[in-house]
C-alpha cells in the first residue's frame, strides 16, 4: 500500500457549506442564467424533496430557504490546490484528481505516521476539520486506491492479489470513461471490472480501445502510471464566502479557523513557518477590513494563529457585515526540525515559548504596551533611555558608560519641590552636585545640578536645581 486516495464525494457542496457550522439546505446549479439546473444538493435539501436535475425554480418552491450556488470551476480548482498543499504535511508527492480529490504517495509516510490505517484516519479527520467529507483508501497502486475510495470507505489493502479481488467487484462506473462507451460496455453485458478483466484482451482492445485496458492495467499494477505531482505555491491564499453576512466577530472565527488550518498544513508540508499573515474581511460593497497579524517568531501552528487573530478581532469595530473572509500569507521561513546539540534545541524551544508569550501579550495589550528598555548614551537623564519592541531571546547590549548614581525610578515629569531644608518635605542633600548640561544641538538643552537627597521619612530622591533663573528645584527620580 503505497498510495492513499482521498475522494471527496461532496466536494462542491462542502466547499460552499464549510464557512458555517450549521447545515442548511444547499444546492449547486449549472446552466444559463434563468434556466439553471441543480447538479447536486445536500442532505438538508434532499429531505425537503429537492433532487439533482430539478430546475432552480422547482427547488425553490420545495425549499424556499434553499441556498443556491453556481458551479465555479476556477474556485473549485483553487480550493483543491490548497487542499493538496495542506496534504503536503503527510507526504512529498500529492497529485490532484480534478474536482474530486487527492492521491498521496504514502510509501515513506507509513512508518512516520504509524501505519496505513492511522495515516488514513489522520488524513480523513484532517479534511473533516477543514470542512470536507472524505473517503480514504490505501492500495498498492494509485489508480486502484482512487477507484476503491470512490466507492468504499476506509479500505486498506497491502498486496496486489487482494487489490485484484477487491477491484473485480467494483462497477465499471469507477473508470474515467466517456458516457457512450459505458453504454456500449453495458450493452455487452458487462457491469463490473471483473467482467471486463475476464474478457480476452485482444478483442476487448479492438472493441473499446487501448485506453480502457491501460486504465485497468494501471489499477492492477501491471503497468506503471505517470502522475503529475502538485507543486505547491510559496504563497498562501484562501477565502470563504459566507452564506449570510456576518457582523459578529465570534462568528467569523469559524471560517477563519478552517483557512488558518489549511495554512498551517501547507506550512508543515514545506517545513516552513510564517511570522505574519493578513486576514481580509470583505464587506461585499467594495470595502474590506484588513487585519495584519504579526508573530514574534515564525510558526506553523494553526491554533496559535487563531488565538492571536481572536485577540485582534475582539478589539475591532466592524464597519459593515462581512460577506467573505480571506487569509493571505507569504514570506515563508524555513522551520528547521530541532536537531543538533541539546543546548541549541533547548534554546530554540525557550525562544519559541517566549515568542508565543510575547505575541499573546501584544495581541491583547497592544504594540505600545509591550516593550523593552535600552540605555542611550546621552547625558540628559530623560534621554538616556528608550523603549524598543519586545522580541524573544537575548540581545547584545551596546556598552554604555556607567554613570554616577542614577535612580531606578525616573519621574515622567520632574516634580517641583521646595529648596532643601525648606518646606514640608525637609529635604537633606547627601551628595552632589553633578552638573549635567547639554542638548543645545537639538534645541532641548538642559543645564542642571543634580543631587542625591533624603526626605524626612528617609526616602532617597534625585533632585536637580535649574542653573537658569528662576533656579527651581525638582525631584527627577526615586532611588527605590
Amino acid at each position: 500500500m503505497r498510495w492513499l486516495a482521498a475522494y471527496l464525494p461532496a466536494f462542491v457542496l462542502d466547499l460552499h457549506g464549510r464557512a458555517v457550522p450549521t447545515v442548511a439546505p444547499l444546492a449547486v446549479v449549472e446552466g444559463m442564467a434563468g434556466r439553471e439546473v441543480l447538479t447536486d444538493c445536500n442532505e438538508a435539501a434532499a429531505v425537503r424533496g429537492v433532487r439533482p436535475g430539478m430546475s432552480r425554480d422547482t427547488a425553490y418552491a420545495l425549499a424556499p430557504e434553499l441556498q443556491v450556488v453556481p458551479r465555479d470551476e476556477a474556485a473549485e480548482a483553487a480550493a483543491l490546490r490548497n487542499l493538496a498543499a495542506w496534504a503536503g504535511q503527510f507526504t512529498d508527492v500529492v497529485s490532484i484528481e480534478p474536482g474530486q480529490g487527492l492521491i498521496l504517495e504514502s510509501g515513506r509516510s507509513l512508518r512516520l505516521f504509524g501505519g496505513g490505517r492511522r495515516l488514513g484516519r489522520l488524513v480523513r479527520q484532517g479534511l473533516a476539520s477543514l470542512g470536507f467529507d472524505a473517503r480514504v483508501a490505501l492500495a498498492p497502486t494509485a489508480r486502484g486506491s482512487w477507484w476503491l475510495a470512490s466507492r468504499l470507505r476506509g479500505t486498506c489493502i497491502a498486496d496486489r492479489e487482494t487489490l485484484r479481488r477487491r477491484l473485480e467487484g467494483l462497477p465499471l462506473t469507477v473508470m474515467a470513461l466517456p458516457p457512450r462507451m459505458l453504454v456500449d460496455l453495458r450493452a455487452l453485458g458487462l457491469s463490473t471490472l471483473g467482467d471486463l478483466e475476464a474478457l480476452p484482451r485482444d478483442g476487448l482492445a479492438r472493441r473499446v480501445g487501448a485506453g480502457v485496458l491501460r486504465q485497468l492495467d494501471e489499477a492492477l499494477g501491471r503497468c506503471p502510471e505517470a502522475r503529475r505531482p502538485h507543486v505547491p505555491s510559496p504563497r498562501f491564499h484562501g477565502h470563504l464566502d459566507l452564506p449570510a453576512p456576518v457582523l459578529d466577530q465570534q462568528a467569523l472565527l469559524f471560517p477563519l479557523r478552517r483557512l488558518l488550518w489549511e495554512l498551517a498544513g501547507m506550512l508543515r508540508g514545506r517545513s516552513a513557518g510564517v511570522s505574519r499573515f493578513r486576514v481580509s474581511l470583505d464587506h461585499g460593497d467594495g470595502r474590506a477590513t484588513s487585519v495584519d497579524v504579526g508573530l514574534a517568531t515564525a510558526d506553523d501552528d494553526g491554533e496559535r494563529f487563531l488565538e492571536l487573530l481572536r485577540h485582534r478581532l475582539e478589539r475591532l469595530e466592524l464597519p459593515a457585515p462581512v460577506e467573505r473572509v480571506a487569509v493571505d500569507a507569504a514570506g515563508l521561513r524555513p522551520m528547521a526540525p530541532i536537531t543538533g546539540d541539546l543546548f541549541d534545541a533547548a534554546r530554540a524551544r525557550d525562544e519559541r515559548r517566549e515568542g508565543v508569550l510575547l505575541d499573546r501579550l501584544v495581541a491583547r495589550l497592544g504594540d505600545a504596551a509591550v516593550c523593552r528598555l535600552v540605555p542611550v548614551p546621552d547625558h540628559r537623564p530623560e534621554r538616556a533611555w528608550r523603549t524598543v519592541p519586545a522580541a524573544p531571546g537575548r540581545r547584545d547590549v551596546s556598552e554604555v558608560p556607567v554613570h554616577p548614581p542614577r535612580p531606578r525610578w525616573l519621574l515622567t515629569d520632574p516634580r517641583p519641590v521646595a529648596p532643601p531644608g525648606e518646606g514640608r518635605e525637609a529635604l537633606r542633600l547627601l551628595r552632589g552636585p553633578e552638573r549635567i548640561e547639554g542638548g543645545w544641538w537639538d534645541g532641548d538643552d538642559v543645564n542642571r545640578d543634580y543631587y542625591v537627597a533624603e526626605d524626612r521619612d528617609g526616602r532617597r530622591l534625585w533632585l536637580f536645581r535649574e542653573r537658569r533663573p528662576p533656579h527651581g528645584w525638582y525631584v527627577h527620580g526615586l532611588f527605590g
Partner: protein
Amino acid sequence: MAPQAVIPAPGGLEQVLRHPAVWRGRAPSRGGGPVVASGNEALDEALPGGGWPLGGLTEILGTADGVGELEVLMPALATLTRAGRLVAWIAPPHIPYAPALEASGLELSRMLWLRPQGTVDALWAAEQVLAAAGGGAVLLWADEVGDRQLRRLQLAAERGGALGVVFRHAGRAVQPSPAMLRAEVMVRPGGGALRIIKCRARPPAAPIPLCGAVPEGPTSPPRPRDGRRSGY
C-alpha cells in the same frame, strides 16, 4: 597514609550551606521549593529556603514608591536575568530607569516593561508571564487586587516556577492574603528595614536592616554653588 584531599567548594562553605538541599540541624526547617538568593545575607537567613521563593507569590508593602522596594529585589533580578530568565515589570508607577537598572546588574534584554490599561489587563498579563516565562519573575504594581486574584497569581507562579511579586500599599498589611511571603519595606532616615509579615514554615523574624549606604557620587561633600544656605 596520605591525608585525604579536601576539595574546597567553589563558593565557600556559606554558599554550600545556603543551598536549599542542605539541611542543618539547628536551622529552622527550610522551605521546600527553589529560591533565588536575595543578595542580603541577613535576609536570606530569614527567608525560608534562603531566598525569594520561585514558584510562589510575594507581596511587598510600602507606604510610598521609592522606599527601597527595588533595592531589596535588585540582586535577585540581576541573577535571574543573567541566567536568561525573563523579568516583567507590569504597570510600574514610574519609568524604570534603564541606566540605573543596568548599573545594578540587570540584563535589560531580558526585561519586559508592560503598560496595560487597567487592573484587569495587568492581572491577566501577570498571570500569562508567570505561567509561561519559565522560572522568571513578574513585578506587578496593583494595589487594588482581591483575594481571588492573588490566589490566581499564586497558582500561576507555582505553575511557572516563577517569582511573583506584587507591590501594594502598607495599609494592606492588615488584610489577609494568600501570598506565600509578605514583607513590608520600612523607610527610615539613614537606612530602611524589611519586616517579614508572613512566611511559610517559620515565625517572622525581627526587621532586617537594608543597606543604607549613600550611592557613590562623583563629588562627595555637597556644595551648593550659589552660596544659598542649605538646610542639611
